[in-house]
């Protein structure tokens, strides 16, 4: 290719020169346009075709070019939506977030109108759509106050050909749902230019005034995300055992009563800030230093460990974050006055 400048266009060398020129020019075009070839050439691309002939007549070798025919590639409208959640999203009454990806599968820039449908057939319950947001900071996680919430009619910015956008659908889960209830939320994306059967054409609506034509996806796409209710509760039981001053189990002054609080975490999710508290019953006195958590003694003072206790305030044990299936035991002693 670099040798092209060595040719001198005189006399019989013309033919050689022309074929070398084609080699150079076309190879260059081919190479430079390669990155656009992955998913279809961009809308607005010009396809130009020229043939060239060499031949010999009585006067020697000659060259003739054809006219150049040019056609412009029109805009194809195609979009896909996929759910980005690896499975059903664990949810409880309150806010839940579903994540989707909208990809412009067309060959030109296009914006898409988004519609979230919470009332999918087969749902155990329906959510209420709070908002549709785009992943402004690109971290794949919904950040309240950071990620832009779309205002109605919810429409994305123009996406370049092959560009993908992460979209969040924020829903409100109603009260009264039961554990293991599921609900699907469907996100629909539609090309702003138009949708329809593949092949539907929108004259002049494409790139550079070309046409826009609906591709195989119908220029719309949907994906379904799911919520799974995992209500997590704590089942707290309290038991007492008595040891009287005489070795029996009667409740008389001086009897030591040992209270056992058992907390069982039920459900599939987790809970934050679980704190077990209990008061000291009237006519009893807390036995100093008797507070225990899962068999280990806790001090009565506050701040040095998870527990604190006093005759006036009762006992308190801060367990923190707990998961479904966990069980905890807190014990303390009082004496009957």
């Amino acid at each position: 290719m670099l040798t092209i400048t060595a040719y001198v266009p005189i006399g019989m060398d013309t033919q050689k020169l022309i074929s070398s020129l084609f080699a150079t020019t076309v190879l260059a075009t081919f190479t430079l346009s390669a990155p656009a070839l992955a998913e279809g050439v961009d809308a607005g691309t010009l396809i130009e075709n020229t043939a060239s002939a060499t031949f010999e007549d009585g006067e020697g070798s000659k060259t003739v070019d054809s006219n150049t025919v040019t056609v412009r590639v029109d805009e194809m409208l195609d979009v896909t939506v996929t759910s980005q959640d690896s499975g059903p999203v664990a949810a409880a009454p309150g806010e839940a977030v579903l994540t989707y990806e909208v990809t412009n599968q067309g060959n030109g820039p296009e914006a898409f109108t988004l519609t979230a449908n919470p009332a999918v057939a087969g749902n155990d319950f329906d959510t209420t759509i709070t908002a549709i947001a785009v992943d402004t900071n690109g971290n794949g996680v919904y950040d309240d106050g950071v990620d832009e919430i779309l205002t109605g009619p919810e429409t994305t910015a123009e996406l370049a050909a092959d560009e993908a956008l992460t979209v969040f659908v924020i829903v409100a889960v109603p009260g009264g749902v039961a554990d293991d209830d599921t609900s699907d939320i469907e996100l629909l994306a539609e090309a702003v230019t138009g949708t329809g059967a593949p092949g539907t054409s929108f004259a002049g609506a494409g790139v550079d005034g070309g046409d826009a034509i609906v591709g195989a996806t119908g220029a719309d796409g949907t994906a379904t995300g799911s919520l799974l209710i995992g209500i997590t509760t704590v089942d707290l039981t309290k038991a007492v055992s008595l040891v009287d001053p005489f070795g029996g189990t009667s409740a008389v002054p001086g009897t030591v009563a040992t209270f056992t609080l058992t907390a069982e975490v039920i459900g599939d999710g987790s809970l934050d800030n679980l704190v077990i508290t209990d008061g000291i019953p009237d006519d009893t006195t807390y036995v100093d230093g008797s507070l225990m958590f899962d068999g280990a003694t806790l001090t009565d003072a506050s701040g040095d460990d998870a527990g604190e206790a006093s005759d006036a305030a009762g006992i308190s044990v801060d367990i923190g974050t707990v998961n479904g299936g966990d069980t905890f035991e807190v014990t303390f002693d009082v004496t009957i006055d």
Partner: protein
Amino acid sequence: MNIFQKALATALFVATASMAGPALAQEASPVSLSGDVKAVVTSFDAEGNQSVELVEPSTIVPGDRLIFGTDYANTGDEPVKNFVVTNPLPGPVRLAPDADAELVVSVDGGKSWGTLSGLAVTLEDGSTRSATHQDVTHVRWTLAEIAPGENGRLEYPAIIR
């Protein structure tokens, strides 16, 4: 890349400058070449019979099929010999898979020629693989002689990338 661009610029400049020579010769050319392009529209009637129609390309998108044609004619009064028509494929199209297997093509920008089945592509690591329709950069037709007044048509099918 920078060196490549410079070299390309030089090559294109020379190309422009030197085209003046052949252009003069064309005025007296006894051969005319006329190019056209048609879009291929395949449709099915109610009985499921397939019909193929060639139309002016109005709306075309990636995946569509085009037929590039070149009409040639010897308008002089002498026969012309060694008539070779070279057609570089536009970058946005690839040769259709059902193109004539006997068509002489190049996969290296016009340096070497042959039928597709006999050509190979050299990869970046130096190894080679058989060339495919995707790789074709040029097509070429050779006619030994065109008699005075004789004309004909050359075509190749392409798919928009």
